[in-house]
């Protein structure tokens, strides 16, 4: 009977529109274990190691730092392109804010590259073919997705870090990403800086597992990232 009550509560939550992933995250569970099993069952990866041609992010704290480095590379490349080819009708104020964000992402990218030294993954090739850089809505829509993703990635990765200094560094960066996310959201629709698509009823932001974040980032990357050795708890 007790089990049924728990199950009903769970279904009730999902029935309220909470996606499975968020629901599991809310329970403190990770889908990465399930995702890893799925990945292993795929034919292209019979040995369980990185598929041919993929970039292995590595394991332990180094793996998490490379994971962050990969995301910062993606963001820096995106804002670099935005600065090179500004969208039609961009205002001076928007131009300045987006240039600032580009500089911040370059700062983060180069920080991780230097910090990782010879353990750093190579420079990534991006795939921005789906983005119309002349179109404000297209650019800001992708910016919003990247910033919210970055925030959720750092929030989800915090518990995977074992070195307290790295945790602090991640904390120093994630709040800047959250400032970006809020600003981009406000540029799209003033007042949407922390709406209920990202903040739940407990006032908590999203926290995502590396597996989920890598899946979300995949369409924007020509390089194939493999996070199968990343810590999951």
């Amino acid at each position, binding site marked *: 009977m*007790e089990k049924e*009550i*728990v199950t009903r509560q769970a279904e009730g939550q999902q029935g309220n529109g909470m996606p499975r992933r968020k629901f599991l995250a809310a329970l403190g569970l990770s889908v990465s274990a399930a995702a890893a099993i799925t990945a292993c069952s795929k034919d292209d990866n019979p040995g369980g190691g990185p598929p041919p041609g993929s970039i292995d992010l590595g394991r332990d704290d180094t793996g998490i730092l490379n994971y962050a480095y990969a995301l910062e590379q993606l963001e820096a490349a995106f804002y670099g392109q935005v600065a090179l080819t500004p969208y039609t009708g961009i205002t001076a104020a928007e131009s300045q804010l987006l240039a600032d964000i580009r500089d911040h992402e370059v700062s983060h990218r*180069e920080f991780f590259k230097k910090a990782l030294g010879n353990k750093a993954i190579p420079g990534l090739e991006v795939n921005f073919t789906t983005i119309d850089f002349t179109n404000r809505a297209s650019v800001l829509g992708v910016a919003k997705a990247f910033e919210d993703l970055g925030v959720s990635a750092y929030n989800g990765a915090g518990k995977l870090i074992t070195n307290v200094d790295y945790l602090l560094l991640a904390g120093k960066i*994630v709040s800047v990403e959250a400032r970006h*996310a809020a600003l981009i959201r406000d540029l799209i629709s003033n007042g949407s800086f922390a709406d209920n698509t990202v903040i739940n009823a407990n006032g908590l932001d999203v*926290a995502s597992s590396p597996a989920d974040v890598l899946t979300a980032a995949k369409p924007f990357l020509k390089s194939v990232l493999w996070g199968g050795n990343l810590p999951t708890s």
Partner: protein
Amino acid sequence: MNIQNILTEIEKTDPEVYERMDSRRGAMQSFLRIGGKLALAAIPIALGGMFKKAYGQSAPNIVAVLNYALTLEYLEAEFYTMGAASGVVPAGTPGVGAINTIRDHENAHVSFLKTAIASLGGQAVAKPTFDFTAGGAFGNVFTNYDTFLAVAQTFEDTGVRAYKGRAGELMGNNDVLTAALQIHSVEARHASHIRQMRKARGANVKPWITGKDTGGIGAAVQASYNGEELTTQAGIDIAAIVNANAASESFDEPLTAAQVLAIVDPFIV
């Protein structure tokens, strides 16, 4: 999540688990009693607390950090609740919705942290009595919109730094750590928006913190920004990568508990 399976697994390694928790049924009832009152996100914290109690492992420092966070959330929640009710935010402007959103988040944080503390077997601190004029330094905080937003910006930026400063102490409890990070980024979103609200009213301020600049608020809040000017991270000179402003903006800095308590002290009677 199947609590029965979890208990069965524990029983394999610790046959006396039910004696520690009265009984299997008692453990389930305990869980459901807590769980029924809890927001879902707090359940793992509650579970952890239940087992910790059963095994006699308390988490005094984690509770202390959560009470520290709760004190700051009490401050913010009451500030925005009073602000929203005061009429200081001009009616019919987007500011009304924004302040209401932030108010609701801060009140949700209070409620979440209280639940989390109780789940860990701790005692939540009582809400202090606040003076948002800080003894007169911000005498018109609820009648002058610019003063109100200046205090709001300071609280948000300070809150971000406060959570950052103590996250490391939560490393022993993944669920609490993750929840704290999830609150931390919400405070940063708030800070960004409040700064844009001030910018729209003529303040020279960006969504991010440049150097140790208060954004024109001045000496009264300087302690909340001191240290933000750092441009070296883990021994790496960030100002050699990007310009000095961007180097400081791209990393937010922590504050220690002592620094934060000194900052909020004037607001507590």
